[in-house]
């Protein structure tokens, strides 16, 4: 089988890309997704708020997942579920040969262009090197949501949530729904990182406090979880908090296995494949979009990233893709990363803007109302308006300065 475009991953980015590719007249688009149902993370994220920026509606995660999958199929893309792409290598006659496994067997699909949209996951307890026992009852938000919303599991007893970002409050709501009494949200940061309204809601409706400047030091319990030792980072004092469920939230990392096996360069900040503003990776013909290149933005932002990639792919297939040079874009401390990681500039022409005309960044520190400065070789290209830096929360940098990037110059650096 041969297709014009193979999309790996049927979450918001992949499905939106497939729909857009078909709308732009691309002949054959195949989406391979390893799960039994398309839609990615929103499949098991029951809260409201999905679809705002891309579908201009507000719905629950599962409804949004279905809407995106239905749209892709209606647009004429083939969506193959339960299908794992295990290898993607250059094809014998150009393009790529992707090996995929499903209940139907092992198949090699030829593709002119490959779009990786494999998303991201939360770092589990082990990757965070939290010592102690290894009892049952310790999980990530992804596992929690699937157990509760797809598996109808109950989680009686006390629960502790590690993290105080948006997703952490979502985990709190899921735990409450499953019958758990949430003791607290704990974060090593000096402040919570979500909306003030979420924190107020947590305190008022669920009576759940946020313990800031607090670290989980040890997990205790042989068979079942007994509790955790938490330390106050200010005083150094530690205490034991009994709990039956422990949920590690946020601390996102791209699911980049296929990207690495394909030999793509990785960005040290995002840990996803490096992409320029066209969402091209370091390998010709391979694009990447969604939370693989910015873990983790909301689903609608991931969807719009997929749509952006689709437009560039359609142009490339139509022969209209510009010959370009790439100028790297780097985030400097306290910024952790910026995405995309390079500006694509048409030879003798204009720079291509990123999805939604803006770069997305993350900070590792809180900063109040700073301006981000964009420089190249010591020259100031532009300054943002005042922004607030909050770890785990997106910062957007509009790309109005793109025209001033020197295609022959050094890397563009962004810093407060």
């Amino acid at each position, binding site marked *: 089988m041969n297709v014009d475009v193979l999309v790996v991953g049927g979450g918001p980015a992949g499905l939106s890309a497939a729909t857009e590719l078909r709308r732009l007249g691309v002949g054959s688009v195949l989406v391979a997704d*390893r*799960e039994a149902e398309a839609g990615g993370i929103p499949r098991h994220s029951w809260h409201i708020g999905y679809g705002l920026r891309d579908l201009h509606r507000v719905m629950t995660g599962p409804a949004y997942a279905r809407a995106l999958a239905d749209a892709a199929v209606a647009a004429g893309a083939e969506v193959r579920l*339960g299908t*794992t792409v*295990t290898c993607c290598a250059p094809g014998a006659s150009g393009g790529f040969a992707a090996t995929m*496994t*499903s*209940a*139907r*067997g*092992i198949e090699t699909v030829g593709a002119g262009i490959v779009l990786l949209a494999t998303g991201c*996951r*939360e*770092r*589990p*307890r*082990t*990757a965070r*090197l939290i*010592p*102690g*026992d*290894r009892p*049952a009852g310790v*999980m*990530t938000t*992804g*596992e929690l949501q*699937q*157990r509760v919303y*797809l*598996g109808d*599991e109950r989680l009686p007893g006390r629960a502790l949530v590690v993290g105080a970002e948006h997703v952490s409050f979502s985990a709190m709501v899921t735990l409450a729904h499953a019958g758990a009494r949430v003791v607290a949200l704990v974060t090593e940061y000096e402040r919570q990182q979500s909306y003030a309204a979420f924190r107020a809601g947590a305190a008022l409706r669920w009576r759940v406090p946020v313990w800031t400047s607090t670290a989980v*030091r*040890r997990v*205790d319990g*042989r068979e079942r979880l007994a509790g955790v030792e938490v330390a106050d980072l200010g005083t150094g004092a530690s205490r034991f908090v009994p709990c039956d469920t422990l949920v590690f939230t946020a601390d996102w*990392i791209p*699911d980049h*296995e296929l990207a*690495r096996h394909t030999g793509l360069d990785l960005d040290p900040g995002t840990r996803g494949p490096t992409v320029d503003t066209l969402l091209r990776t370091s390998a010709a013909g391979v694009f990447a979009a969604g939370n693989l290149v910015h873990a983790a933005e909301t689903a609608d932002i991931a969807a719009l990233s997929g749509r952006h990639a689709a437009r560039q792919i359609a142009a490339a297939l139509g022969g209209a893709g510009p010959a370009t040079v790439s100028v790297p874009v780097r985030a400097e401390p306290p910024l952790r990363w910026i995405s995309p990681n390079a500006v694509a500039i048409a030879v003798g022409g204009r720079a291509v803007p990123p999805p939604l005309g803006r770069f997305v960044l993350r900070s590792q520190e809180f900063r109040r109302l700073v301006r981000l400065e964009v420089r190249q070789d010591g020259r100031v290209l532009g300054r943002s308006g005042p922004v607030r830096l909050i770890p785990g929360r997106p910062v957007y940098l509009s790309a109005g300065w793109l025209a001033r990037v020197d295609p022959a110059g050094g890397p563009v650096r962004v810093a407060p």
Partner: protein
Amino acid sequence: MTDPGASVADVVIVGAGVVGTAIARTLARYRLDCVLADAACDVGTGTSKANTAILHTGFDAKPGTLESRLLSRGSALLREYAAATGIPVEYTGALLVAWTPEQEASLPALAENARRNGYQAMRRIGAGELYAREPALGPGALGALEIPDEAIICPWTTPLAFATEAVGAGVRLLLGTCVTGVSAASDEVHELATTRGVVRGRWVVNAAGLGSDVIDRMFGGDGFTIRPRRGELIVFDKLARTLLRSILLPVPTARSKGVLVAPTVYGNVLLGPTAEDVSDRSDTATTAAGLDSLMAAGRRILPGLGDEEVTATYAGLRAATEHADYQIRVDGARRYACVAGIRSTGLSASLGIAEHVAGLLGEAGLPLRPRSGAVALPRMPYIGEAGQRPYQDASLIASDGAYGQIVCHCERVSRGEVRDALASPVPPADLGGLRRRTRAMNGRCQGFFCAATVSRLFAEAGRRP
């Protein structure tokens, strides 16, 4: 509760770790009625499940000891057995890397020690060849001693294969059965009080690992005390696997034993172990100090590890005693065998130990009459990374689509493999058991994507986690 030991067994083996299961499958080749009892709900759950997963040659054993002899013999037997039953093994070889002049100076003595253990194939290599073979090695290595026959093995499949063979040959496996006391029912029969009723047997083999001194005292012994030594280990992401080819062993010095970095048969990289004497025989918790020291050592040995994700951390307890050598004794008058103090070499030596113990039992009066007919070796599900996994096997998937349905994405475990494990002769009793049989949920996401689905498959099979 039914009385599991209403009949009198010829031999009751206490402890279903890698040593106990090896003894069970060895004795099962004779016309004996055997019971294999373990306090845990699965085989191989103690030291056997949490170790460095290396199939040693025994080159570094103390020459002339029982450990040296049984390690050398057991290692050879296990290599054959693994090939015949499908236990994942990779012949990676090992490099004892010297980082200081002191360590380099001790390499000739280590080579001489190996020779005295009957091992000849080691070879000195210089820094140039070392870095050509292991280009990701950190700076400063001076040279190495190559041990080409050191290998890596699956520590989970090994006792499971032994237990599967034993059960297939009629051994009665009593799990969740903790021995709490012993009395003599008659001059010929021991009566073991257990948490699941009385178990009777003419002979008792104590292979209780971390609990072996407790059992030994029930039989009047007082020759040794278990002093658990905890080893913490870190498992790195499969994406780190390209950083090394061989097992990188430390050169032991007077001051420290050092830590090793090794590939695993699952395609990961293992770093460890620490060595810490602990008093609690069930304390397999990891510690901040232990993990920190391992990470620091790992970054020195293989700096690229610092950029890779950690997939798992764990700790195991070695069943060390105050003695340097194995504590293996058979008392014919009491019809009792003690197989203890196996420390950290039990996996590699298991079949040698079993052969030795069977011989001692025969000499002491246990009648060893071989069964007629050929021995049926089990064929174990292959959970290694080097060979062909079910998801890669087109003809297998064509015969049964369930092998193409991947449920654990990080480890690429299919629904068919989970189903097979749940229906196997020695089925898992909990999700941990399922993990050890299939690798499901052992990967980098630690269940973010698959735990809910795998738990549901387990629950549907009628065994609640």
